[in-house]
């Protein structure tokens, strides 16, 4: 798997806030078809890393490369168009609108259709087809007319994934998709993500270790902004450095 050219790559990313090194020379790759999980204790710099990959924060040094192209200088929206499908840790949905309208927004973005002023988005066949296909993929077709504010927490997570899907991304960046989910919801979402890796690889930042060990082909451990280990679930479980970082014991 690691022989193929990576879809997404960070090269020596570093970012400091004053004296705090939030990201310290992070180089990771995301290979076709894989789920690469990033784990680490709270405050390890996982969110900062994601923000740099997606364009919300500028790294001090280093590059982000997508499909061999350096996207470090691009804005958030340009990176999305280039193929980054992001989901948020705290759902960023249009709460006043219906599920379908949220998915349509993704379709509008995917097709660069924001500069249309006359025809209703809901009645535009190609937009609707994209939106409905994405909702069907995550199992939200029955909720299409529901107002987003009335959705359950789990369904909001699914909608986040559906919106990323409408972009037909080259890579998914998912920031704690399992956060706040119950056991049943977690399991359903795990199944969904499992199938999704065929469409595009997933860079998964997650706290839920069950999900990580069930899904990830590779796991990287981020501590104080540094990647201290990368490997299979088995390798990570038995790594001394990881045990030290998490448990604080030197045995």
């Amino acid at each position, binding site marked *: 798997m690691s022989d193929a050219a990576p879809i997404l790559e960070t090269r020596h990313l570093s970012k400091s806030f004053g004296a705090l090194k939030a990201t310290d020379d992070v180089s990771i790759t995301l290979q076709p078809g894989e789920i690469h999980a990033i784990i680490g204790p709270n405050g390890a710099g996982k969110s900062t890393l994601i923000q740099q990959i997606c364009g919300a924060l500028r790294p001090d040094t280093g590059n982000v490369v997508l499909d061999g192209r350096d996207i470090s200088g691009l804005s958030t929206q340009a990176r999305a168009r280039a193929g980054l499908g992001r989901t948020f840790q705290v759902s960023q949905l249009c709460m006043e609108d219906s599920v379908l*309208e949220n998915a349509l927004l993704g379709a509008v973005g995917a097709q660069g259709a924001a500069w249309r002023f006359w025809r209703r988005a809901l009645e535009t066949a190609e937009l609707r087809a994209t939106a409905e296909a994405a909702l069907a993929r995550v199992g939200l077709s029955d909720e299409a007319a529901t107002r987003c504010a009335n959705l359950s927490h789990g369904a909001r997570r699914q909608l986040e994934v559906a919106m990323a899907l*409408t972009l037909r991304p080259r890579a998914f960046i998912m920031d704690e998709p399992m956060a706040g989910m119950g056991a049943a919801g977690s399991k359903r979402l795990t199944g969904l993500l499992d199938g999704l890796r065929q469409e595009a690889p997933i860079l998964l930042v997650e706290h839920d270790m069950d999900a990580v060990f069930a899904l990830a082909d590779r796991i990287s451990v981020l501590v104080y902004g540094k990647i201290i280990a990368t490997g299979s679930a088995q390798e990570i479980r038995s790594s001394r450095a990881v045990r030290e970082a998490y448990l604080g014991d030197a045995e």
Partner: protein
Amino acid sequence: MRIAEHWINGAVLIGIAALPLWALFIDEPFTITLVTRAVILALAAVGLNIVLGFGGLVSFGHAVFFGLGGYAMGILAYHAQTYTVLDLGFFTTEGTKSMPIIWLVAMGISAIAAFFIGLLCLRTSGVYFIMITLAFGQMFYYFAISWAQYGGEDGLSIYVRNGFPGLNTLVPIQFFGICFALLCLVLILKARLQRAPFGLALNALRQSEARVATMGLNPMRIKLLAFVLSGAITGLAGALFADLNRFVSPAMFSWQFSGELIVLIIIGGVGRLMGPVIGACVFVALEHFLGGLTDFWHVYLGLILLGIVLFGRGGLLGLLTGKEGAHV
């Protein structure tokens, strides 16, 4: 009491059309002028509502566009009525008394101003945006006061209302008809815009800018275009308002007017198509009746407004339809 919003919308438009006709029948031209005033203010507020209600951008400087529309009319008509030449260096004109041309110029100037003001103001958000738009309004206000060539503080009087092909605009009901038709046209455009992909994106922008960017859409460009459209519509209203009064003055640029436009929208209901229209009718009625009772009617307006903000979100439309409007 809950009434479907589109029934109320229809009833309001029919009411606005019927009142002047009735006034014509009983020969009360002043009522026609009053309704025309409400229609023009409604048009200005519909423009503001594009950014305020749907985009969530509290512009406290929309008087800029209202004033620019007014001065576009004033300057063109002034040169036409004095038979003088307006020399812009690259372009000279003897002015015009034709409404359609004046409207195009008013909208064009307002749109250009909105583009540059937007480019600067939209870099900021929240309270900064409110204060900066307010400050820009003041800048234009003081500029108009110190611009002696066009009347300075005293403003400009236009002796004869500008013309529209085939109509006699001096007849109040005919001028009302023009304003009402323009309002309806803009409302139709707005209704389409709201549900079109652009409207969807603008609406999403109010709720989460990060989401819009993540979907590959450029938030700044969407906001800027909304601001330009909004400015152009308010500019058109300014030109009509100047024609209604046959007078323009720096007061059209005043911050109080920017505030009143926001108030109109709030009285009617934020983020609703007809909110500004209903708000403008109520405002003009209050101004007329309360203003007739006491010179200090602004005290009551202030108290009513406080009541709405503290106790009744959603405005009148919210009250009638039982739904809250968009949250800004």
